[in-house]
């Protein structure tokens, strides 16, 4: 029972995917949307881990994703590696960059850290764009092969969403581990965490590195699915979009970023003009910050807490802690 209860998010997600994907994959356009949504959901999840759990407001996730994508493209197209052999590279390369950078900036104020991630993201993007011989410069790399056994778009949609479920499963395990609990303490009380023998910068940096790996996987999937990468594929604006998705859904909740992705990106596909995407994202973010700072999941949780408190207050006193917990 406890195993199931501790993996509630994974189960909910897995059930939703199992119900929705068979229906969605009957339509070619929907299948494509589902695959892309899954890739963005992974990116938003990586923001959730970094911002929601470790408190690093990250603006470099798209850059880490493009590292993953270029790793896939270069390994398979340039060096002729067999598919799947490039996955470890896509996982490790972003982490190898993210970790030392985080070690450098994780002691800074949240605002300064956010700016540093933006800076490192931009540096990666410029490096990719200007290493012509290696990355194809502005032209990018075309003809990335598919991942062996997966060829049809529908199979990609399944593979991508299976990846999302796996990441959520690992993420949930992480949250319940000693490491995850330490991260949680850290978010509320740095001094307490340090007094408990936790090394805050180390912990935060590790979380940032893992989050960059998740972004790397999303880039890896992107490259193999679209079969083409260029500097424009995963640019800085996507970093911001991923952040907005995570915040709108609720960055500190495991499924928040996925909900945010579905809402923001899913609904964008219904917009009259694609150029207006930013208007829609931006307004959604501002409204969410004003109405429910902890995102849609936070709103739901706040509502539930209030119901519980109402019941309690009928029977007796309300504690200050509960009032604190019920604040939006």
């Amino acid at each position: 029972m406890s195993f199931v209860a501790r993996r509630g998010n994974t189960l909910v997600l897995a059930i939703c995917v199992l119900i929705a994907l068979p229906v969605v994959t009957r339509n070619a356009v929907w299948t494509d949307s589902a695959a892309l949504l899954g890739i963005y959901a992974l990116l938003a999840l990586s923001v959730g881990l970094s911002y929601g759990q470790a408190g690093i407001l990250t603006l470099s996730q798209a850059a880490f994703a493009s590292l993953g994508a270029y790793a896939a493209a270069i390994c398979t197209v340039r060096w002729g590696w067999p598919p799947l052999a490039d996955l470890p590279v896509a996982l490790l390369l972003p982490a190898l960059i993210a970790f030392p950078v985080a070690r450098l900036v994780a002691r800074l104020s949240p605002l300064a850290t956010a700016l540093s991630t933006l800076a490192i993201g931009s540096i990666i993007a410029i490096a990719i764009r200007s290493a012509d011989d290696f990355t194809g410069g502005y032209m990018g790399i075309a003809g990335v092969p598919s991942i062996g056994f997966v060829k049809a778009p529908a199979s990609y949609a399944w593979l991508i969403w299976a990846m999302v479920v796996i990441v959520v499963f690992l993420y949930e395990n992480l949250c319940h581990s000693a490491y995850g609990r330490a991260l949680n303490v850290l978010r509320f009380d740095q001094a307490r965490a340090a007094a408990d023998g936790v090394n805050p910068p180390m912990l935060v940096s590790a979380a940032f590195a893992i989050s960059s790996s998740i972004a790397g996987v999303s880039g890896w999937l992107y490259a193999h699915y679209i079969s083409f990468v260029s500097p424009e594929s995963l640019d800085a604006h996507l970093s911001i979009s991923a952040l907005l998705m995570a915040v709108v859904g609720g960055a500190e909740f495991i499924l928040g970023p996925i909900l945010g992705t579905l809402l923001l990106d899913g609904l964008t596909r219904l917009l009259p003009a694609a150029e207006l995407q930013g208007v829609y994202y931006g307004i959604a973010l501002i409204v969410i910050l004003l109405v429910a700072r902890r995102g849609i999941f936070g709103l739901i949780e706040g509502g539930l807490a209030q119901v519980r408190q109402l019941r309690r207050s009928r029977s007796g006193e309300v504690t200050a802690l509960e009032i604190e917990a019920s604040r939006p």
Partner: protein
Amino acid sequence: MIHFVEYVLRGALAGAIYALLAAPMSLLFATARTIDFAVGAYALIAAAVAATIGGIAGAEAGLAAAMLSAAIMSLIFVGLKRLGCEDGIVFALASFGLSAVIESFVLWYWGARSFIVSYVAASWSLGGIRLDQQGLFNLLIAAIVVVILHVVVRHSSLGRMMRASAVNAVGATLAAIPVEGLQMGVYLAGGLLAGLAGLLVLYSAGIDFTAPLGLTLSGFGAAIVFGVGSPLRCLFGGIAMGVAQALASGYLSEALSAMTPFLFILLVLSMRPADTEALAGGRP
């Protein structure tokens, strides 16, 4: 040698724009402990409106558009504050939202074109080094603005109140200082200066809808190089960054030149000089 001098001078001229963006950023950080990521977008909307209408009227309309956008940001800021938010990162996030809205609006209304208007194409020659008059004009404007700001912050009652609310908001309220009004005013001033920077970019190198993020970051880099908190340092910071960029592009590569603002930011933040402590501190 002549090349070196030329790079330095050209870089200094280019850095003037960064100083204009940096000054309001450091003021906002000083008074509200947050960053307005939308300053680049204010510059963009000012340039777009000015280019469309043209002439002096266009410049005025551009500045008005930038200030209107900044006014929206200041309202969002006050709204968040009234709802009990004191977290600088949330205000910064909201400004990202506004920046996305403005960029996307420009893209939708004007398309992906770039805006450029050239009034002064002439240049002066100084011992074999060509300096374009527009660039010198930009530097002059930036220097004037920065000196005015410096005098206001250091030697006026308004500046005293701003510095007071920055260090002790409760104390400032008790001293009947309109803290929120001051902070809104700084957001608006940011709109005005960013709008001005947008116009100068429009008249020099040109601007398109992808520029805001880079402009914001360059401004931020210039604001922190010599420590936040003083407009004069922003001018030197802007010039230093412009020069570094020009030297990198002249002697190393275009890519390194483009990376310069970001390397500046990483370097400065990781070295934590005493004056960036306020920004850098916060985690034990």
